[in-house]
């Protein structure tokens, strides 16, 4: 039951909320608008609609090379983070070992520390280990930093897991390994997908850590960064608009997946005798 009396809804608060929303979305709207502007990135109002910048973008090989690099790193990063994150979440949920508290904090550090610190530390490590800076070092950086995201999400998923299901599986004769594949993992499906999408997005966007670990091959954010040093063109608006569109699409997919999975679970609940 709602408690707010409709006559008590404050018009000032509503107006303020609208303003905050406007503030949050203004730059994005401007960005998208000017990606279609023939006369460049500044001035007002934008006239002369054109798709020229998008055409230029599609012919820009360097950008698309960097996109591929980013995708490679992101995919590998997701794989690494999810695997280690899953193990870490399981360990935190089920095992007791010396240094567990320290481990938990350590895993979460990259999430809360400014990226420059993690990036520089890994750079020092790479030099120390005699590694050449390349996409490999970038991959190591992303994967390591993003373990924390996977751990947090999967730990939450494990908490919701009904322990009795695993016990029932063991009772029916399945080995722990079989139980893990047949019972634990399927129950974590939603958490895995959510974590995966988040890690993917964060990796595609990562700059601070990548800044110090990048070799000759650029990731997308760093390619854009390099362009910015040379001068602003609406082509950057265009790629930014595309990034925005993809991000929104990802959220919608994630949302639908979530709703459908919850829907299936609810369905199963109803069909249970």
């Amino acid at each position: 039951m709602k408690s707010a009396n409709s006559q008590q809804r404050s018009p000032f608060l509503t107006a303020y909320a609208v303003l905050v929303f406007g503030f949050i979305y203004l730059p994005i709207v401007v960005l998208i608008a000017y990606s279609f502007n023939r006369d460049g990135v500044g001035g007002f109002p934008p006239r002369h609609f054109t798709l020229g910048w998008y055409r230029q973008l599609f012919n820009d090989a360097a950008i698309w090379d960097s996109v591929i690099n980013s995708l490679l790193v992101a995919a590998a990063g997701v794989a690494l983070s999810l695997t280690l994150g899953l193990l870490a979440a399981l360990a935190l949920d089920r095992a007791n070992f010396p240094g567990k508290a320290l481990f938990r904090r350590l895993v979460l550090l990259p999430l809360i520390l400014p990226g420059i610190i993690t990036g520089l530390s890994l750079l020092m490590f790479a030099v120390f280990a005699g590694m050449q800076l390349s996409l490999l070092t970038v991959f190591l950086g992303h994967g390591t930093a993003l373990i924390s995201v996977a751990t947090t999400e999967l730990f939450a998923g494990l908490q919701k897991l009904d322990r009795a299901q695993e016990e029932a599986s063991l009772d029916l004769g399945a080995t722990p390994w079989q139980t893990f594949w047949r019972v634990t993992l399927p129950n974590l499906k939603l958490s895995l997908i959510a974590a995966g999408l988040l890690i993917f997005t964060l990796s595609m966007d990562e700059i601070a850590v990548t800044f110090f670990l990048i070799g000759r091959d650029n990731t997308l954010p760093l390619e854009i960064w390099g362009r910015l040093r040379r001068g602003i063109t609406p082509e950057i608006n265009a790629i930014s608009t595309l990034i925005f569109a993809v991000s929104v699409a990802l959220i919608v997919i994630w949302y639908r997946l979530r709703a459908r999975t919850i829907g299936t679970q609810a369905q199963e609940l109803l069909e249970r005798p």
Partner: protein
Amino acid sequence: MYSRLYKTVIAVPPLLWVCLFLLLPYALMFAHSFWLVRDGFLVHRWNLQNYRALFTNPLYFQVFLRTARIAASVTLCSLLLGYPLAYYLSFHAGPRKELLYQLVIVPLWVSYLVRGYAWKTILGSDGVLNGFLQYLHITHEPVSFFLYSPFAVVLMLTHIYTPFVFLPIYAALEHIPRPLVEASQDLGADRRATFLRVILPLSIPGLLAGATFAFVLSLGDFLAPLLVGGPSATMIANIVQSLFGAAYDWPLGAAISVCILLITASLLFTTERLEKRWSFK
């Protein structure tokens, strides 16, 4: 229920990885802060010279102060924007609450760089804002202080971190059982008193979490000054970055990083204690 083998298998790989790729690197950074650079080469001689330089040379302190001021401004502005928004969504939005929540989250998924770049194009002398003001004849010349100033950095970072601050506050507000709000009104407290006496105190853990996040990340940000800040807005992380780049002095850079890390760690520790004190189950 879980055998020792099971527990070992799940615990060892992440532990090993984290030790190798997190603990060791951070330790390396720590070690570097006690070393030196001489004639362009790294000398592994243990000393406190870097730290002494940090505390005696006023330049570093000034930059650090500016950084703290910017971070504090960002945190304050993010709170002033994020809290009322969270409050509105939680208590006044009604059936549209879920949709509006998604709308707030969307910008979080959009690249930091993209958003920073957007502000760059808006605030510049040839930018959208100046164009807009001139179009309306509010100004006749481009205003230059919008871009390449601490103001621009605060603006951009506030834009980045407002949704981050919004999230934990919204979660905390949603957790407040509505009967408590009704009980407060029932006992004679109007909306303002109910907010101050019941809602605000119970939302403090979320508020602290969001504020800490915004402050700490702003403190260590080096990209915003490079994008929109200009030389007058150099922050402490920019100094670190240049020490690892053109100004080649890794030990000094490491020393500053260690200081940032220590400040961050103690802030996190303090807020964690405060959050515990202010959470009521």
